[in-house]
Every structure is written in C-alpha cells, then in structure tokens.
C-alpha cells in the first residue's frame, strides 16, 4: 500500500496532466471555463489525488467520499455537474488500474463516484431513468441518439444537481450558455430547443424534474 501511495504522490502530476488532456480534447471545457477554469481543473485533479493518497494512507475511503460530496457543491454552483466529477474519478481509476496494487485506489475512486449518486428524492428518481429518458427524448425530437446521448446524460446530471439543491438558476445559467455553444458546434438552436422540449415532455412522469426544467428554460 505504501508503494502505491508513494507512486500516487510521485507520479500524480503526470497522471493528472494526462487525464486533463483527455478532458480538454472536448472544446466544452475551454469554451465554458476559459484558461482560469483550466488552471482550476489542473489544481482540482491534483487535489483528487492528494485526497486519494490520504484516504489510502488512513485506510478510510470516507476521506475521499466526503471530499467528493463537498467538492460537488463547490463545482455545481460554478457551472459544472456531478457527472463531470464522476467522470474525472472514473478516468483516474482507469489510469491507475494497471499500477501494482492499483486495485485499492480503483476501489476508493469507485466509492467516490458512487457517493455522487443522489440517494433519495426526485434527483435519485431522475437519475434512475436516464437511459429511458434519453431514448424517449431522441425519439420525440427525431434526432440521432449518437449525436445527443452523451449530451443528454450530462444535461440530466445538471438537472439532477439543480433538483437536489433546489437551484433552478444553476440549470438556467447552463442552458443560456449551452445553446449558443451547441450552435458553434454545428447543432442548430432550433434542434437544441426541440430536444429540450422533447426532454420536458419525456419527464411527464417525473413532475418535479419537469417543472424545474421548464423554469430553467424560462430563465430560472
């Protein structure tokens, strides 16, 4: 275990750069958060590894999971969503999996990912229906699922975060930025609005989520 912890501390910066480089191949990150955001992302990645090392040293995954849920509040109120953080933990786990003894770190990172899933309420209900909602929305909007599946999963994460924190303004702020961004990516505003409208209709059985999405689409 000590060797694993030492390696995380010694090689963490390089590992973090590789993971961040993967994220930043998606233009979303630079466009959404700029160079300042890139700097914070790099710092956060190092913090993830520091807390991981500390959790392993103490034999207490709670150190990492408590950090994860605390950080989620910080990040979702600053324009990110839980899925982004979960993906970061997943990519770190993927990178460390091949290290000697890495399975311990992977286990802790998977627990951290799991800690980001809402355990109760409308957010939990929403996230339990993601696949069905994505399929229904794409069918209603008559858009190719391969163009929208990942985007909808992320949008649903934003929606779940807004539901869990009772902050429709967070989703509203994201949508205000998101629609022009998608247009710059070659997806017309009309298509994006059609998808959001289809998503709202698909949420008919999840009233709190549907109401919040409607409020956010109307400005929060």
């Amino acid at each position, binding site marked *: 275990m000590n060797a694993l912890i030492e390696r995380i501390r010694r090689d963490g910066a390089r590992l973090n750069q590789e993971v961040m480089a993967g994220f930043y191949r998606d233009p979303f990150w630079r466009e959404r958060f700029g160079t300042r955001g890139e700097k914070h992302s790099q710092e956060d990645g190092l913090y993830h590894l*520091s807390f991981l090392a*500390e959790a392993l040293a*103490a034999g*207490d995954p709670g*150190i990492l999971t*408590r*950090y994860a849920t605390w950080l989620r*509040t*910080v990040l979702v109120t600053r324009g990110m969503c839980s899925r982004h953080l979960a993906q970061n933990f997943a990519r770190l786990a993927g990178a460390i999996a091949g290290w000697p003894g890495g399975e311990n770190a992977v286990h802790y990172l998977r627990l951290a990912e799991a800690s980001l899933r809402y355990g109760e309420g409308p957010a939990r209900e929403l996230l339990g229906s993601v696949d069905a909602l994505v399929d229904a929305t794409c069918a209603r909007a008559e858009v190719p699922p391969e163009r929208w599946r990942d985007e909808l999963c992320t949008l649903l994460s934003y929606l779940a975060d807004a539901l869990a924190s009772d902050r429709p303004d967070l989703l509203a702020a994201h949508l205000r930025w998101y629609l022009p961004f998608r247009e710059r990516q070659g997806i017309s505003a009309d298509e994006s609005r059609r998808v959001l409208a289809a998503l709202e209709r698909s949420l008919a059985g999840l009233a709190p989520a549907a109401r919040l999405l409607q409020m956010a689409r109307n400005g929060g």
Partner: protein
Amino acid sequence: MIDAPEGRSHPTDLAALRTRYLAAQLRGDRREALRVVLEEGLGSGASVAQIRSDLVRGAQAEIGRLWEENRISIAQEHMASAISQVVLAHLYDRADRSPDVGKRVLVACVEGELHDLPARIAADTLDLAGFDVIYLGASVPTDSLVATIEAERPDLLALSCTISLNVPALREAVARVRTATGGRLPIVVGGNAVAWSPGLPAELGVDGVGASGEELVDAARSILASQPPQPPEPR
C-alpha cells in the same frame, strides 16, 4: 447580500445576533460587527465563550457554506474572516482570565495551513483558562516549529489542521516533534481535517483531540494533570 433584521436581541437570542453579525461581516462593516458583539452580545449578558462559539465560529461556518455554494466570493470570505480576527482581539481584551495554571502550551497551524482562525480561538481559550500560551499562527514551517519547541520547552503542543491536504504536514510535524523531544511532549490535534478523518488521532498516536477551544482546554487539563505545576519561564 443578506438583510439583517432590525431591533435589539433577547439576551439569549444568539442566533439573531449571529445573523446580524454575519450581515455586517459580509458588508465589510467592521464597526457594526464589533457593536453587535460587544454591545448587543456582551452587553446583554452573553459570555465571551458563548459569543466566540455561537457567533464567531457559527458565522464562520456559515461563511464557509456561502463560499461553497458560490454565494460569496473568496475576497468576501477573507474580508469576513479578517473582521472576526478583530472581534476575537476585542473579546480577548474583555474576558476575565483564570489564574495561572503553571503550564505552557504552544499552539500552531501546520505548515501550509493558512486557516488560522480555529487555532486563534484555541489559543485565546487556553490563555483565558490560565495556560501560558505561545501562539505561532498560520502555516508554521516544521523546522521552525521544532526549533521553537526546543527553545520554549512547552508542556503541551496543540497543532491545528483545517484542510485535509495538509494532513501530510501534520504527520510530518508530529513525527519530527517526537524525534526532537524523545516523545516526551504531549501533542493534541484539532481542526476540520481531523474531524474529516476520525481515525487520524489514533493513527498519529497523539494524546488528545480538541474540536473546540473548550474541548482543548479539557484535554490539556486532563493530559497535564499528572505533571507538577511550574511557573512559566520568562520570555
């Protein structure tokens, strides 16, 4: 911005005082923050310990939450914390001090730890409880900590660690101090990082934990009870 309700408080309505205190902090209104604490708080019968705990620490916890939720900026957080430092100085000045207990306690934040308000509160509480306190403040380099311990020879060391990222520095400080003192100096630890890692005190083998100033005083009294009282050495 947070709106403060008007009117004076019931003597025990510390929650209302805390709301007004916090509002003053976030406006950067140092004088109003002091007025709330000294006139309305102390003036209505609340003790220094209550105000320190329920107002200052309580407001600080709320400030932390507001920053986490992006409702205030880091600059506002620093401004509010700086006001609390001023308030603590005034509270210290107005508090009654217990008779000397003949024990010296060194209080320090570990290297890299910039959040010194909890340690400041701990130092003040110990001082007012009659301990001879050497307070080193924020982010004390471990080399300097060890040198100070060797020079000042405290009876107890209290280390503060708020951010979990500084736990390696806490481990290093404990190990280096143990080496330098032959393990003879009792050590207590405190701070949010310790609260976040419940197994840490046992892992470090420290002699006690102080989650608050009062808890630290209790731990110090308990640990040092078996030692004979000595007059503090002149500094």
